[in-house]
Structures are given as structure tokens and as C-alpha cells.
């Protein structure tokens, strides 16, 4: 009888503490960020706390820049920028696909398969370097490359200039944007860059939760959030409101691609790629620089086991996640992914 009583008391305690810890997790994460448990990050790591989706810095200048944005938007969708007249920037960065293209690798000029996966341009204003391998230092510089690349848009700036200068409405658009009718490569790429900086994610359920809707996340997603910050060590690289440290890492997926090494020529940068934002990650697969990862649970499992090729970053360590924990993490990745914002495509000049 006494034994039964002890068992009864004990199981009661277990049930009580379980429900308490569940409630606790929701309460903790509903509270001020300063009261959140410290994330599990390695000592060498500079991290920022997760947070609400930040506004693009262009947002505050939207009025004064509206004509530059309008021009950039038009150019972004104009196939005149390509040699074949069939490809625009939006071919590989489609608004309805969260501004990626859903392909392993993008298809360029005359069916040419590109070297890497097309990343989303959402929140790209944040990156200090552009391209998976960081070879561009800003969006304007980046915009030159696909236009001139023989496998992507297969064009030449002089040809693009010639085509655009024939179009009267472009003269008007350039004049409104820059004060006179001059059409040149610097203005073209600048307008595209400014437009790209206006493209951001829609707020996700995670943002709704942070902004006070305590019910915006399920229990599983909340556990996922906690795991993301703690046991799963995701914040070693994916920290801050945009879930990226803006750095380069070899996460073990580099394959034969030298990545950032080709830019810096430093041995330690071999196989490193830019940490992508995880905003909308469940909408922007297939994943990694080469688009070879098609299945998120298997990516999580690879990080869990840290059973990745040599040369990987020391920040990637075995995690010992249970099946439920892996599911919770996946649920959280869904909670930070949202449908793209509505977007009105521009009318292209005749």
C-alpha cells in the first residue's frame, strides 16, 4: 500500500513537473528577451539574439527613392538584360517562390546549368558580402555578374545599354530616378540594387509570437525554438533576427567547391560558404550552395550526427538529438517560414 502510494505520488510529480516545464517554456519565451535562457554557443562565437524581422534600411527612404526603386523593379523583370532576350533577374528570383527558383541549380542561357543554387534575394540588404562564395562586396557589384556571365544571362553591358537606349520610356525612367536621361551600367546596377533592398520576408508566426501573440507557436514549435537556441547549437552560425551571422563556414557540404577560398586564397577558408538566413527556409529549398540537399529532416540529421566530411567547421559537433527533438526543430523552421509578401510585377516598357 505504501509502495503504491509512493508510485502514485511519484507519477503525480512527473506529470506535474512535465506540465510545469511546458508551461514554463511558453512563459519564458513570452517574456522579455533578456530573461531568455542563454543560448548554447561556443566561446569563439559572436552571436546576436533572435528577434522580430527587421525592416530594410531602404524603407525609411522609400519616398525619396521611389523612382529609383521603380526603375530597378522594371529592370529586374526585363528580359532585355539577357543576350537571348528570354531571361530576366526574376527568372531565377521569382516573387511567388520567395524570390528563389525552387531548382537545384538555375537554368541560364540556352539551357546552361549554373554552378550553384539560386538564393532568395529576400533580406539581402543585410549581407556584407554577396554570392555563396562572397565574391561581391555589395549588391550593385553583384548585379553586374549575372548579366555578363556567359552561362547566366549571357549578355554584355554594351549590348544591354544599346537595347535600353532605344526604349523611350527607359529614358523617362532613368531621368525620374537620376535626374537626367543618361543610361549607363552604374545607374542600371544601382537601381537594381536599391530595388533588391526593398525585398524582405513576410513576418512569420515566430514574429507574431515575439510581438505578443502567445498562441502563435505550437508546443512543438516552442520546443523547437528552445532547442534551436540550446541543445541543437544552431546559433553558433544562425543567430540574430535574420538567423545568420553574416560569416562564412564550411558546414561539411562543400563537395568539390572551394567556395570562399577562391576569394581570400586563405587555406582556412577552403570550402566555406556564406551562412544563409533561415528566414523562409522551408520555402527556399533545395538547399545549400549546390542545391543537392532536397530534404530538411536529412539535413538536420547530418548536423545532429556531425558525420560530415573532413574540413568542416569546429562549430559543428554531434548533438544527440532525439527523434522528437528533431521533429520539434523542423517544426520551428516552419514557424520562421512564411508565404512571400504580395508583389505587383511591373509593366515592362514596349
Amino acid at each position, binding site marked *: 500500500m505504501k509502495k503504491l502510494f509512493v508510485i502514485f505520488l511519484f507519477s503525480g510529480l512527473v506529470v506535474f513537473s512535465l506540465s510545469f516545464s511546458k508551461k514554463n517554456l511558453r512563459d519564458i519565451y513570452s517574456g522579455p528577451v533578456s530573461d531568455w535562457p542563454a543560448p548554447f554557443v561556443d566561446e569563439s562565437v559572436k552571436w546576436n539574439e533572435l528577434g522580430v524581422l527587421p525592416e530594410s*534600411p*531602404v524603407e525609411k*527612404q522609400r519616398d*525619396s*527613392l521611389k523612382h*529609383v526603386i521603380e526603375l530597378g523593379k522594371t529592370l529586374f523583370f526585363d528580359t532585355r538584360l539577357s543576350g537571348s532576350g528570354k531571361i530576366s533577374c526574376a527568372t531565377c528570383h521569382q516573387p511567388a517562390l520567395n524570390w528563389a527558383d525552387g531548382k537545384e541549380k538555375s537554368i541560364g542561357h540556352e539551357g546552361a546549368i549554373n*554552378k550553384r543554387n539560386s538564393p532568395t534575394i529576400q533580406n539581402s540588404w543585410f549581407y556584407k558580402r554577396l554570392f555563396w562564395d562572397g*565574391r561581391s562586396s555589395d549588391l*550593385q*557589384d553583384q548585379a*553586374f*555578374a*549575372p548579366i*555578363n*556571365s*556567359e*552561362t*547566366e544571362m549571357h549578355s*554584355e*553591358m*554594351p*549590348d544591354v*545599354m*544599346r537595347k535600353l537606349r532605344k526604349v523611350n520610356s527607359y529614358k523617362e525612367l532613368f531621368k525620374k530616378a*537620376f*535626374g*537626367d536621361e543618361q543610361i549607363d551600367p*552604374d*545607374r542600371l*546596377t*544601382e537601381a537594381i*540594387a*536599391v530595388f533588391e533592398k526593398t525585398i524582405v520576408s513576410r513576418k512569420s508566426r515566430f514574429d507574431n509570437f515575439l510581438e505578443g501573440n502567445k498562441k502563435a507557436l505550437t508546443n512543438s514549435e516552442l520546443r523547437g525554438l528552445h532547442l534551436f537556441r540550446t541543445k541543437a547549437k544552431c546559433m553558433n552560425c544562425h543567430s540574430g533576427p535574420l538567423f545568420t551571422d553574416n560569416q562564412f563556414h564550411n558546414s561539411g557540404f562543400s563537395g568539390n567547391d572551394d567556395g570562399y577560398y*577562391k576569394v581570400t*586564397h586563405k587555406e582556412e577558408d577552403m570550402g566555406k560558404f556564406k551562412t544563409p538566413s533561415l528566414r523562409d527556409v522551408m520555402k527556399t529549398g533545395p538547399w545549400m550552395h549546390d542545391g543537392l540537399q532536397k530534404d530538411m529532416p536529412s539535413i538536420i540529421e547530418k548536423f545532429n550526427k556531425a558525420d560530415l566530411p573532413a574540413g568542416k567547421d569546429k562549430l559543428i559537433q554531434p548533438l544527440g538529438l532525439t527523434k522528437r527533438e528533431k521533429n520539434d526543430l523542423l517544426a520551428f523552421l516552419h514557424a520562421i517560414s512564411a508565404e512571400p509578401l504580395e508583389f505587383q510585377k511591373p509593366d515592362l516598357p514596349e
Partner: protein
Amino acid sequence: MKKLFFTLVIAGLGFIANAQPPAGDAKPGEWYGEKVSTEGAVDLNDVVKKLNGGSMFPEVKIKAKITEVCPKKGCWLKLELEDGETAMVKMKDYGFFLPLAAKGKTVIIDGEVNLKTTSVAELKHYAEDAKKTKEEIDAIKEPKKEVKVMAKGIVIVE
């Protein structure tokens, strides 16, 4: 005044156009794009002699001297040919750039060599980039047969 306003708006955001070639001394041994070994390189002139209308060498390692580097971005080069002409080099995937200091250096380039016709518009654009005078630019009226090189990797040798 209006123009000043535009300039200020753009400059204030840090979007001012500042395309420029990468910094660097282009010392022997420095490389760009794919890392290239110096073994098995042949003189560009020998390759050009074997080129005739439309033919190409898809994979060849050439040795040549740089006579010009794109002053705006370092995205194209010109190489010296013994007939007084030059060969035009572009980088694969528009993926890498050379510093201005590479001018006058001898390099080994791994890539593709072919004979192509360059349009008048393109020739004029390159002339503009090279800050040629208006008269020189206007004088360009004929398309040009040109040896073109698509470089995967470049290493400075001397």
C-alpha cells in the same frame, strides 16, 4: 540643385557607384579564379597560328603578356600578340577580376581560346571604358576579328 539632391540621397545610403578593380600588386605567383599550375603552358602566338575562322581550343593553357586591364572593374584584359594585335580576355562566369597592377605582367591562363567577331557597339564601349577621346570612339566603324580568351584561372609568372 535637383541633381545634387539625387546625389545626396544616393550617397547617404552608401550606394554611390564605386566599381573598381581589386587592389593588389599582381606579384609572380599570385592567382585569380581557379588555381592554375604553370606546367604545360604554350605561347599564345603558337595557339593563334593554329586558329582559323571559327575554330577554337576549348581547353588550353597559354602564356602571354598583359597589355591592358579594364580600368573600371578589372573584368577584362588584353594580351599582346606578335602581329601587333591584341587578344581579349574575359573571366569565366564573370567570376573574378584582376588588379590594375597586372598590366605589363606575363601570365599563364587556363581556359578557352577562339576567334570571334566583336561588334562595333562593344568596341565603342570598351573604348569608352578605356577613356578614349570622342574622336577615337567615333572612328570605330568596322567590327573586329579578334582572338578571344575565356579564362578559368590566371596566374602571374613574371
